[in-house]
Structure formats: C-alpha cells, structure tokens
C-alpha cells in the first residue's frame, strides 16, 4: 500500500501544525496541565483514581473569559438524544437567545455527513460531540478542529482530552453475566473459561465505536493482544452488532457472559432484567466522549461557549443526570472499580490494521 506513507507523513506534519497554538498556550500558562495528547498506558492508568478535583485551580486564572454567545450554532453529535437535550437545554437557559440546531445520528451517519460536507464546500457544523476519541482524532488530524483550552477543561484528567477535543463523559466497557451465572467472571480472561464456552457475547468493532475502543485496548495491553480475540473465538464467542445487543442476549439467556457498556447494563438492571454487572478487576475500559469546536466556525464565540458549558459543573451535572459517568466530579453512576484506557494516539494510526486483524478472526 504505497499511499499509506505520504498520508502518514502528511498526518504528522498536520499534527505538528495543529499543536502549534497549543504549545504557545502551554508557554503562556507556564506550567499548566500538559496539552499534548499524553497517551495513557493501559497497564498503568492515570485514570485509576478519578480524584481530579484538585487540579483546576492552576490553569483557570490564565485563560481569558469567553465572549458572550449569540445566535445559532449547529451541533453534529452521536451522543444519546436525552443527554444532548439536557445539556443543550441547560446551556440555553444560561444564555437566553442562543439556539442549537442539532443533527443527532449514529456514529456512521454523523461521520458520513461530515465527510460529505467536506466534499462539498466544508464542514457545516460549529461543534462536534462524538462518542469515541478515535473518530475525533481523524478530524483533528485533518485540521478541522479549533486548538484551544476551554476554561472548564482544566479539571479534566489529561488522559481524557487533547489540545482540540475534550472528554465530556465516560463510557465504560465492562463485563456482564446472567443473574444465575455464579460466581461470574472477575476479569476479562475469565471469558475464556470452559464453563462459559459457546455462551459469550461481544459487540462488533466494525459497527460500534466502543467495541473498537476495546479492540484497541486489548491489542495494546500486556498479556492480551489480538490473540485475546482469537482465544475468544476459540471459546465460541459470538459477535453481535452493538453493546445493547450483548446486554439483551445475556438477559435472555442466549449468552451467559458478555462484554458491554456499563450504561447499557445499568439501564437493563434498573428495569429488572436478570443480569449483573461484572467490573473487570484489571479495570473497565474507559472511553471518553469528546467534544470539539470547529476551527472554521462562523460563530466561534458561541461554539466555544457551548463546548465549555458541557465541561462546566452545570454541564457535567446535566450529563450525569442522564445516566452517564461525567468526566469531572461525581454524580451519575459511580465506577465500581478502576478504569483503564488505550493509548488513543497509537491506536489512531492503526485503525484499518486492527479491524482487518479482527475480521480475520471473527469474519466479515
């Protein structure tokens, strides 16, 4: 594949360019939180203790307050409808007169819409709010995102932000088991045990961004690698489209155990489905849901105000109120154990490779 090389070179140079304003900012802040991507090693996670409450003080004073927002902005998002509604509602209440035109769709449709925009005159959105960091990295790589530090971003753990996009909430990839499956899995490798053979459900990374994030994590983690998926296949695991389908499959008894998102499991448990959540002892795979302001936005001040609001205490409370773990502070569901993340920047360059390796095992 000859075109891969120039693309990679281009990517690197763009990345450097994109980091430039960020670097200046770092100098200006003199010792503010590192704004370079600072990858998280899956084995030693900085996010293990999400007690990030002490950091914001250092950066807040040196950043200028935002201009007051006016007019309408367009938001492209793959975040769940009720969460978008809550956050948009809160922001509009705080800034009377502003309006958000929301295009909400699954990840694939949002990505297609953005790609189509780019083919016909440029991105029409002022802000992007996505469900996984890898898609966002693609847009950062193309230089579409504004490099800046929102005033409220200082509170966010460095693992959950870059110089262009900022985590708003955490999706945790965990295990679930049927209520009657005891003792149930303690860590990921228990999915390879003979007693659950043929009754394991996993989401398809081709369809679900969160499943792809899990694939990225395992490919990097010590003692796993893509061989873990081969082992899952050898234990007759079944892939289904999305984490929700895993949850349903376990609830119905089609699977004994599975890999799904904590939010999906909690929703089902709350309604009375006979399943239980099994938080992996090595840590849930935390996937942050990033938001970013579009660089070419015609209404940048307003876009910035919205992005900042999602990261502010009020925005974070709104997010927590819809059942997601906010990236800053408490509220919402509490993680039942540690959290780990893949090295997003390393995974970004290998998306096709990873997916091909996965497809070679599970078909497709």
């Amino acid at each position, binding site marked *: 594949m000859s075109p891969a090389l120039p693309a990679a070179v281009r990517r690197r140079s763009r990345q450097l360019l994109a980091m430039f304003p960020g670097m200046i900012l770092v100098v200006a802040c003199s010792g503010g939180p590192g704004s370079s991507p600072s990858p998280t090693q899956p084995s030693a996670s900085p996010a293990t203790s999400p007690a990030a409450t002490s950091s914001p003080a250092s950066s807040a004073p040196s950043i200028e307050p935002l201009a007051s927002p006016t007019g309408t902005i367009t938001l492209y998002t793959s975040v769940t409808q009720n969460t978008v509604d809550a956050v948009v509602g809160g922001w509009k209440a705080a800034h009377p007169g502003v309006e958000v*035109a929301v295009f909400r769709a699954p990840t694939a449709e949002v*990505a297609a819409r953005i790609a189509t925009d780019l083919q016909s005159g440029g991105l029409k959105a002022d802000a992007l709010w996505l469900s996984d960091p890898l898609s966002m990295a693609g847009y950062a790589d193309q230089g579409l995102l504004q490099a800046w530090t929102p005033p409220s971003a200082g509170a966010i753990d460095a693992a959950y932000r870059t110089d262009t996009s900022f985590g708003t909430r955490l999706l945790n990839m965990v295990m679930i088991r049927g209520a009657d499956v005891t003792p149930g899995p303690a860590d990921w490798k228990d999915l390879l045990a003979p007693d659950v053979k043929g009754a394991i459900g996993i989401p398809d990374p081709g369809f679900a961004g969160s499943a792809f994030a899990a694939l990225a994590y395992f490919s990097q983690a010590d003692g796993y690698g893509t061989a873990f998926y081969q082992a899952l296949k050898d234990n007759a695991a079944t*892939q289904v489209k999305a984490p929700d389908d895993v949850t349903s499959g376990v609830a*119905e008894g089609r699977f004994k155990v599975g890999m799904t998102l904590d939010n999906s499991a909690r929703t*089902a448990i709350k*309604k009375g489905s006979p399943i239980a959540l099994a938080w992996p002892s090595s840590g849930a795979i935390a996937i942050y849901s990033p938001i970013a302001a579009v660089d070419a936005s015609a209404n940048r001040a307003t876009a910035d105000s919205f992005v900042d609001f999602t990261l502010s205490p009020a925005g974070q409370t709104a997010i927590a109120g819809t059942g997601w773990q906010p990236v800053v502070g408490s509220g919402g569901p509490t993680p039942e154990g540690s959290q780990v993340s893949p090295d997003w920047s390393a995974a970004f360059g290998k998306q096709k490779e990873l997916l091909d390796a996965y*497809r070679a095992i599970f078909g497709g």
Partner: protein
Amino acid sequence: MADPAYGGAATTAARGRLGDRWLVVLAVMLLVALIGIPLVRLLGVAVGGGVGNVLATLADPGVGGAILNSLWTAALIAILAVVGGTAAALATERGGLPGAGWLRAGILLPLLCPPFVTAFGWTRAYGPRGLADRAFGVEVPGLFGPLGIVLVLAVAALPLAWLIVAGALATRVEPDAERAARASGAAPSTVLRTVTLPLLRPAILSALVVTFVFAVNAFGVPAILGTPAGFTTITTRLYQDLARSSDPALFAEAGVLAATLVVLAIAVVGPADAWLTGRPATRTGESAGGRAGPTRAGVRRRRVAAFGLGSMILLVAVVPLVAVLLTALTRAVGLAPVPANWTLANFGEALDARFADGLVHSLVLAVGTATIVVPLGALLVVVGRRRGRGRSVLRTAATLGFALPGSALAIAILLAYGGWLRDTLAVILVAYVAKLWALGQRQVAGSVDQLPIEIVRAARASGAGPAAALRTVVVPLLRPSLIAAWLIVFLFAFHELTMSALLYGPRTATLSVVVLNAQQLGDPTVSAALAALLVGLIGVIAVPLVLVTRRWA
C-alpha cells in the same frame, strides 16, 4: 392525477411522434437530475483516492467476499420470493380459495414492517430464547447467518413479487384465453404451462428484477442477522466503512463499494430491461366472460390450499410481529413475556413530542413521494412501450436509485444538492423519489403496459376529448394498479430510515429518525414499543391497500 404520460399514450396515432419525443426528453432530464448528477458526484468520491485505491479496495479479500455474499443471497432471495409470490398470486387470483381477501391482506403484511422491525421480530420469534424456543423448544437453525438473511428477506420481498404478478393476472392474462384452452380440453396444469405462465413472463421477469434489487441493497436484515455469523454483505461493509470514515480513505472505500453496486445493478437489470422494452401486453379489452373464475378444483382441495397458505402467513409474518408486541409489553428484557410481567410503560416512554412532529413530516414526505413517483413511473413505462435506441436504458437508469444502498444514495444526493437544499424536507423528498422511482415504475408497468390503445382510440373516434378519454377510459382501467402502486411507494417512503437518518435537519426529523434516536438510548423494550407503534400506524394507513386489492377479486 393529471399526467402527461397518459395523454401521450392515448394520442399515439395523431401526435404520437412529437409527443413521444417530448416524453423521452422529459424522462431523460428527470433521470439526469435525480440520479445522474448525484451518481456522478458519488463516483467522484470513489475515484477521489485514485484508481490505485479503487483496485486495492476491490482486491481486498474482505470486500470481494462481501460482494459475492451480496450477489448469491440476493439471487436466491429473488428466486424464492418470485416463485413464492407467483404461486401465491395464482392461488389467490385463480384458485378460488375461501377467504381470499384475508389471504391477500396476509401476503401484504410484511410490507408494513420496516426491515429492522422484520429482523428484530424474527430473532424474537425464532431465534435462541425466542417465542418458539420458549414455548416449544424449537428455533430456526441458522437464523443468524446467510440462511436467516435469505429467509427473512425472501419473506419481505414476496409481497412485491405478488403485487406485480397478481396485477398482471388481473389485467394482463385474459381469462378468455384460459377458458378457451380449458374448453378445448386442456388440463389445468397444461393451461398454466402453455397459456398463463407465458403471458406472465414479463411480469415474472419484472418481479425478479425488483426483488433482486430490493435484496441486494437491504441493510437492516443482514446487519442484524449476518453479524453473529461474521457474514458481511456490500451494504454492511459499506456501513462499517462509514462508521470509521473520519479516515478519508475509508470514505473513499465506501464510495467504491457503492459504485460496485451500481455496476452490479446495471449488469443484472440492464439485459432484463432490454428484453422487457417494446413488449406491451396483447390484451384487447374486458374479458367477454367477465372476471376469471375459480378453477374446478374440489372444495376440499381449495380449503386445504387456503389453510396451507394461511398457516404460512401466520408463521412468517404474524408470529414475528406478535413477538415484537410481546417484547414491547414486557417490563424488561429477559423476563418471560407473561401477563405478570406486562406493562404499558414502554409505550409511554416511546411517545414524546418528537413523535408527533416526525409523524407529520413522514406523512407529508410519503404522500409527496408517492404522488410524484406514480406518474414518473408511468412516464418511463410509456416511453419504454416502443422499441428504440436507448429506451431500455431509461428504465435501467431509474433502477440505479433503487439499487444503491440508502446510505450511499443519501450521500450522493447531499453531494449534489446539499448546498441548496440541506436540512429541508425537499432534500429528503428528492432522495425518496430517486430511490423509489423504479419501484413505482415496476409496479405500474404491469397495468399501463396492458392499457389497450384501441379502446382509447375508439373513445376519441366517438367524439371524446383527450380529457374525457383519460377520465372515462384510461383512469378507470388503471385505477386499482395505480392506487396499489401509490400505496406501495407511500409505505416504503413512510418507513424509510437509512437515507432519512443522514439527510434530516433540526426541523425535519422523520418518524423513523425519531424511532432510531430513541432506539439508541439502548432499551430494547422501548425500541420494541416504538416498532410496534410504527407498524400499527402504518397498518392503519395501509388498510386502503387491502380494500383496493380486494377489488381485484
């Protein structure tokens, strides 16, 4: 429905040449605008990465496998649906079965379900831990995998084939000819083989084309049923590429896959259209002996046949819907669907303010699409009545919109017209028309083809003006088929999801988009409630369809 097409058909003798040429020009212009320009923009995406990339994509064994999978499943689906649809049409239209009206309604039932509901219903009914598994310990083996895809899509496509063949039986195959053959001593099987089926040939071929194209661009069913078996088709692969298309290379790969489908459609549909063009029916007028009567099969045999057909409908169409409804009524996934666990709460969660807005948008779009597509379909049919250079190409071109997966067509439309029309209902309408034009054309073809020009000429010769001829002769003859075609297009537009999800704007969400967004909240019981509401709503709207088809009896 004032339509220049019929006037053109009616006055072939006098102003034929000139009027006909204008119709061809009109058809070409519309095809270029609705399908040509968007397709060119889409091909631009495909080759945007360079020809090397296109070849590399096609050489990828995963892509090649997906193309093969799409081809053989679609071929099998088309054959199953057309054989089944023809048999069912012969049974309901010629068999004299008791309760034929109910049977027709049952055959059409799968049309009411959006594909994602169909697939969902089948997994809940016949999958592991499904209804049948819980009740009798049986499940359909291989439901998750190619077998399931073929089975479910064949069931979904069968009504399309049935409508075309039944329409042809009602209007094209002259009962007089069949009676003459019987009177001359031919056995029923001989009549079928030597009279009925040869007359049905164009309809059967048309049905094969429609069902093949329907199957090859299906997404919802292969996505749900194929994934667990690692079985990928072009459409699911394309969608997976879109999901990761923040990488421009993968967006280009999606473009290549879409272009491949276009080529496949041309290769399969083109020859069929070339054969169909210039083959209008031979019918000369109303049957001297009235409508076709039942064959002389014994009452017992007819009852057995009706019972068999009814049972099939129950198994493949009704039970999956019941399974959806039971899921919607159950408090949480995994609980037994027994009254103790029933609740209406899921329906409450499903209904919010957006539902009403979506309903209005979907109704406007569906009515608009159907009202535009039926005359457009007739236009193509009229143009294709004559043999002539490139005439069959027009039909084939219209089919490309139907053959493209919704996501790819939506991208093409956005690329072509997004600049002016984005976020309006108009852009969705354009996409619906581009997509469903071929469906309307194929449904109308059977009836417009058989319109006897001689009767129209007789009317004109007796002093009727063009309008009077249209009103008193043409429309009454075509009415049932036109209304049926209108309703089919209406149904498809009403539950269209894939394109709407990409094209809608802040104030133009359709009902299916509302359903999708709610579905993504991750609660399958609420999703089931939404699906049940959607199907129920479509059912209420589709009752006229049943009434109309009953009149064919």
